[in-house]
């Protein structure tokens, strides 16, 4: 599963996209993906907020991830 990274999320992981290793079980939901990220990179747990976008829209924790979805990690936004 390919995950896009922006802002501080890119700095935490050290690259602009991230491949969840195939040997691990595929996270079924947005919630599972967030938990996976926090356990792999504890810095994610220290952010003011952490959101996930699926196909360019904010996704609720319960949303189920499907193969082929465009998934992005959205750290606290700060435009304007």
């Amino acid at each position: 599963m390919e995950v896009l990274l922006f802002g501080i999320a890119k700095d935490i992981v050290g690259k602009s996209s991230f491949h969840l290793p195939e040997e691990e079980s595929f996270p079924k939901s947005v919630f599972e993906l967030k938990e996976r990220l926090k356990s792999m990179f504890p810095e994610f747990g220290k952010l003011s907020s952490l959101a996930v976008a699926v196909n360019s829209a904010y996704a609720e924790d319960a949303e189920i991830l499907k193969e082929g979805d465009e998934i992005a990690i959205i750290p606290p936004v700060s435009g304007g």
Partner: protein
Amino acid sequence: MKDTIIVEIVDTLDTSKVFLELSHPHCGGICVFVGAVREFTDNEEVIALEFETYKSMALLEMGKIAQEAVDTWKLQKVIIRHAVGVKEVEEPVVVVGASSAHRDASFEACRFLIDTLKKRVPIWKKEMFKNKSVWVSAHP
């Protein structure tokens, strides 16, 4: 016929045509807000800001926000335009504006546009100081 809604991510913001873009024969009031790079944050000198975006999602969110404003305040035109890349002191980084029959609606809508953009649109700002740089709002 110009579009009711204009949303854009650009490299360089031009503020000179925004009132022409928002002009409409049914509009008596046009309110525009411009955000620019400020020289100091908490008394610390800012060298520049760097903006990054998730462009496809940002444009969709900006479009949703603009449409919410049009529906709520019966606006004739709305603009949301944000710059990305490195911006120096005094450079404009965001322009939002709304035109409506009367001024109340244009002020309220303009305020909603910038407040909601700051909450929802996936754009990230890094403050570059002399000896460090910080992603704004990342940490509590």
